[in-house]
């Protein structure tokens, strides 16, 4: 093992010690994205890396509704970033693409009939995906064209903030038909804040 692997291994081990599960669907969307960007070979490389780290995972055998340690989801992203030299923008795009082919998103599409309904259902949406932490629909102003959501109790890795930025933006893009729609993490738990706060605005 080289130095990087040692540090990734350490990171993996650290993550795996954290509690909290998420739906297999999240892992499955990771797999789809890697497959889309890097093909079968890329997928196998990630699986191999996971195995090297001591946490083997067959990405094509994921059950979307089963619970898996969230750490695996985070670890897959870390592996992909390391193997494919992905930047933050790639991780953002990974998160932004995930809802496009998410089975759960399709199941929850009934919430997406209006911006307000979607906003109000955000906590439930979180609960459908995670068995820990929570999402708070903090504030919405359709007049001023912004909304604020907060994620509490989620502290795995700062990289995931980028993933969530992309993910939440896509959910907003499903509802708000505006090309000039933006998302910003105004508070981050990794930067000392008590929660993550995301502000989505549009013009």
């Amino acid at each position, binding site marked *: 093992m080289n130095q990087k692997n040692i540090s990734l291994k350490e990171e993996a081990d650290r993550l795996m010690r954290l509690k909290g599960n998420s739906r297999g669907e999240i892992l499955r969307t990771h797999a789809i994205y890697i497959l*889309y960007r890097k093909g079968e070979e890329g997928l196998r490389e990630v699986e191999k890396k996971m195995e090297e780290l001591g946490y083997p995972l067959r990405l094509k055998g994921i*059950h*979307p*509704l*089963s619970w898996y340690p969230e750490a695996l989801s985070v670890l897959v992203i870390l592996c992909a970033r390391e193997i494919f030299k992905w930047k933050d923008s790639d991780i953002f795009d990974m998160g932004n*693409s995930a*809802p*496009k*082919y998410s*089975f759960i*998103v*399709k199941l929850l*599409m*009934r919430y*997406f*009939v*209006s911006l307000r309904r979607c906003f109000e259902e955000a906590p439930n949406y979180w609960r459908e995906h995670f068995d820990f932490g929570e999402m708070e629909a903090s504030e919405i102003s359709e007049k001023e064209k912004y909304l604020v959501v907060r994620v509490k109790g989620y502290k795995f890795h700062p990289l995931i903030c980028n993933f969530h930025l992309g993910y939440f933006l*896509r959910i907003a*893009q*499903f*509802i*708000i*038909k505006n090309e000039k729609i933006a998302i910003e993490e105004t508070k981050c738990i990794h930067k000392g804040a008590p929660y993550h706060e995301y502000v989505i605005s549009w013009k």
Partner: protein
Amino acid sequence: MAEEKLSLEYQRIKEDLEILERYIEDFFEFLPLPVCMVNPAGIIIGINRAFQDLTCYNEMEIVGKEMGFLFLEKKGIKNLEEEVQSRQTRITKEMVLLTKDGEKISVNVSGQFRKDEGGNLIGYFFALFDISALKKFQQELEKKVKEKTKDLEGKTKELEDSGRSLLNILEDMKEALRQTEEEKNKTQAIITNFTDGLFLFDRKSNLILLNPQAEVFFGIKAGDLINKSISELNAVPALSSLVKFLGPEITGIFRKEFQVKENLVLEVSTIAITGEVEEDKSSSSPFVATRERGEEKLGTLVILHDVTREKMVERMKTEFVSLAAHQLRTPLSAIKWTLKMLLDGDLGGITEEQKSFIEKTYSSNERMIALINDLLSVARIEEGRYLYKPVLSDIELMIEFVINSYKEESKKRGIKVEFEKPEKKLPLVLVDAEKMRLAIQNLFDNAIRYSRPGGKVTVSLKGAKKEVEVSIKDIGVGIPENQKERVFTKFFRAANVMRIDTEGSGLGLFITKNIIEAHGGKIWFESEENKGSTFHFSLPTQTAGEG
């Protein structure tokens, strides 16, 4: 225990849900119809494989975008969504899909909205039917229909033009018909008012036209006779003699006399009508023909010219000549014998001077008698009663007789006469010996008369098949080329002979020709001015038993 049971139940439901998800996904992927799901905001949230194949966009590229960008009609999907929502049923619209490859595909877009348990709109399904092949077929069909329509318009125009042309042709034809009718009427008027009688027979010798004058001549009615054949006409009493005269072929008659009755003599001529023919059954004038040679014979025109008056005048003239000649011959004979008696001294002696005068008077009287005889011969010829004593005769003897009778005369003129006889004896000829001698004499006399002193006259006799041929050749003055045609006409004397010989009546060759032809013979000649003439005639021979 209850918690464990609940967990198992949850697990089972979860597995069922996953199976269902895979089923839906598999089904969705299999579905050959391009399908997409759109949320109420009009944003695509899912597509199947067929949709990717048709649009050439993958799921990653297309999900999350508004559906409108896929179509040429940017507001089309929005309108369809609104219509689907308002009518709450499946709606189909034809639109043009813009693929990632830049292709434009005609599609039918069917939209169906999705509702939740509460009846609230939660999205739409859209399915695309590729109708490009159908559209292409339809466009080709429309193109063909247009082409055909254009063709038809062209044809219609052609037909209209043809129609106009036909109308013009029809107008021209009407005009031509009118002119033809006018011409026909003119012709009809000419035919009707023609003083000659006309019979027109078609190529099958059926009578197709008869003019009023012909009706008058024969006391017949055209209506009873038209379209009757020549043989049928033979059965008509008034026409039977004419039909016999014309013969079955109705050809080759030129100015032949035909006596219809005592006081009606017609001169009959036939003309063969040839040329192109257009028979018009409705017309009384069936021929539009020319008389160009070498064309098909279309019929025969029989022209009947009334020569009764001319014949009567001619007869009266002949009778007068005959009467005058007879009346003159008696005193001339008396003069002749008186002069003869004076010359012979029967009436007493006369001086030489008196004798000379009386000889000249005698000679003139002889010429006068000869002229009177010639005139009588002509009169008899014209009366048709010239030959009356045909007997079998030896032509050789006749020729010798004539030559001998001219012995003195030829000797006096210094002309050598030669008679070339055949080695074998020739058959006899049935002739009026007196007239035949006259004919030979006329020819021989001319030969002697128009030979120069020291000349030669050769008479030849030879036999041919069923005929004898006599030739009398001289090397005298000959006949001018431009006067040859008139040689056998009455009172004709060539200009060159009139200068050298004032005697001669101009009747000799006319009489000779009539004598020869009256015996069924032929007469002809060759002549060159200043080189001489040869006159030939032939006569049919008669062997024993014939006759």
